[in-house]
């Protein structure tokens, strides 16, 4: 009671004090917030730099050791293999698994997102969106168990069929391995894992299509699908690319599911149905790390550095794709 009286009594006085000196407390709060926000922004850059520096410093011993010494010191690097020759197949396997997952997940994700945003009745759409978000919350080790124990046996007949009937395509070259601990199975599981994030982001973008553009297409006599092609997909294009890159990032770095399903191997093989041909960087690190000697750890960190560079390049490429047709994006 008394404070409120005080405030009303003070008000004219502070008003008389002029415009600048009104409320010093506000100024401090504003400045503090500016510092906090700048600091948070700087922290991101610092973290990125710290990770990069850590990777380079810790990978340095392996990078500077001569090849034959490296092979002598590390049991799982074969004789006569340089560090780059060791990393190469891992990079290849990582990219192949991630791209495979992306190729399977993106069309399905766009389909689900369009169904939710433009086809489903409103009540069904919100329920479905919720379920998709729920998929994203399942830990990857669960996906690994499910993929290895439940999904893989069920995919096996399909892989045999592919190898028997489409084996002339190098990707499906037979014989399909039994059990199917192959990159194709990994690709399917990774696709399921990245499906939710791609779907969720795409759906949000599609929902933001301006009503005006949708009506412009409909008024020209477009069917619903033609309207989606004319207005929704072009508008959502850059958003879908961003979504795919988020998914690709997750697929590149996914460890547990790959580790639990894939039978590893180190070659540049496109035969997705054959076991013992591929390995990914993340799964390989997890596999070897516990029993590696100091130089071995350094070699593994060098593979990690390669993964770090890949993700940076992928993200920069995505930004370049998005920015290239900015003029036509509808953002202006």
């Amino acid at each position, binding site marked *: 009671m008394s404070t409120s009286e005080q405030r009303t009594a003070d008000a004219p006085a502070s008003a008389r004090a002029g415009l600048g000196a009104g409320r010093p407390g506000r100024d401090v709060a504003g400045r503090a917030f500016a510092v906090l926000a700048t600091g948070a922004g700087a922290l991101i850059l610092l973290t990125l730099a710290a990770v990069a520096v850590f990777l380079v410093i810790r990978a340095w011993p392996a990078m500077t050791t001569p090849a034959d010494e490296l092979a002598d010191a590390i049991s799982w690097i074969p004789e006569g293999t340089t560090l780059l020759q060791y990393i190469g197949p891992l990079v290849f396997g990582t990219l192949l698994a991630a791209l495979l997952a992306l190729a399977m997940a993106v069309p399905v994700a766009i389909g689900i997102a369009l169904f939710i945003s433009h086809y489903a009745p*409103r009540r069904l759409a919100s329920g479905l969106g919720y379920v998709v978000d729920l998929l994203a919350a399942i830990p990857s080790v669960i996906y690994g168990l499910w993929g290895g124990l439940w999904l893989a046996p069920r995919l096996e007949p399909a892989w045999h069929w592919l190898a028997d009937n489409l084996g002339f395509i190098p990707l499906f070259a037979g014989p399909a391995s039994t059990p199917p601990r192959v990159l194709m199975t990994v690709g399917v599981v990774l696709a399921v894992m990245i499906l939710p994030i791609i779907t969720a982001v795409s759906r949000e973008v599609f929902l933001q299509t*301006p009503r*005006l*553009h949708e*009506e*412009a*297409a*409909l*008024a*020209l*006599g*477009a*069917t619903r699908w*033609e309207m989606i092609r*004319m*207005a929704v997909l*072009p*508008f959502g*294009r850059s958003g879908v690319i961003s979504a795919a890159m988020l998914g690709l990032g997750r697929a590149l770095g996914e460890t547990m599911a790959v580790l639990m399903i894939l039978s590893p191997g180190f070659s540049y093989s496109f035969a997705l149905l054959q076991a013992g041909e591929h390995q990914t960087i993340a799964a390989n690190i997890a596999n070897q790390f516990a029993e590696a000697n100091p130089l071995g750890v350094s070699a593994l960190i060098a593979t990690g550095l390669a993964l770090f560079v890949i993700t940076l390049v992928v993200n920069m490429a995505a930004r370049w794709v998005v920015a290239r*047709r900015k*003029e*036509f*994006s*509808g953002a*202006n």
Partner: protein
Amino acid sequence: MAQRIDIKDLNVYYGSFLAVADVSMAIEPRSVTAFIGPSGCGKSTLLRTLNRMHEVVPGGRVEGTVAMDGVDLYGPDVDAVAVRRQIGMVFQRPNPFPTMSIAENVLAGVRLNNRRISKQDAADLVERSLQGANLWNEVKDRLNRPGSSLSGGQQQRLCIARAIAVKPQILLMDEPASALDPISTLAIEDLIAELRSDYTIVIVTHNMQQAARVSDRTAFFNIAGTGKPGRLIEMDDTRTIFSTPSVQATEDYISGRFG
């Protein structure tokens, strides 16, 4: 190219809400018909029933008939998509497709019907449509630039070019100049005067001077109050409506006493 529209006993609903009640009117070919009235009187809603865009809104439906040259647009075997291909529409805010160039925007509707239009035919159609929309001279050197690079008034004329490129029977305009500056508005009005000889034009406008300038016939709509349906109060030659209307409410509205 131009056809007549006959509306009979039309009720327009949003879900269970009756937005426009009991409208009957005839719209003559090769003329400009203006819908005027205060906000919320249902004139835009009625316009959108003429090309079945009303039903795009969830819950949107109509009772009664809208006949184009005797064919009921809401008949059981009439396809809404086919209706919209014959009845063009220009919206309140210019809405060129932002991802398409100026030329692609003009061709957008044509490509829906005919994917394999030859390059030469396409170029001719782009030129003819843009000339029809009085925009050719301003954009002929930058047909590959995005449509969104144009000014608001140019964008709206681009939308008109896009609408007439498919050679519609009827052209509907929903306050086509309300988001534009006076000079662009004048350009649109001049264009409407030229298009009148080829098309049946229906225009919704908030601007009574505009209705007086561009239209041959004027329909005045009004509502009794919030939540009540809009109704057609009277329809007559524009000159008559603006000089000697037969209903008191019309005179009150056009003389600026309400609305």
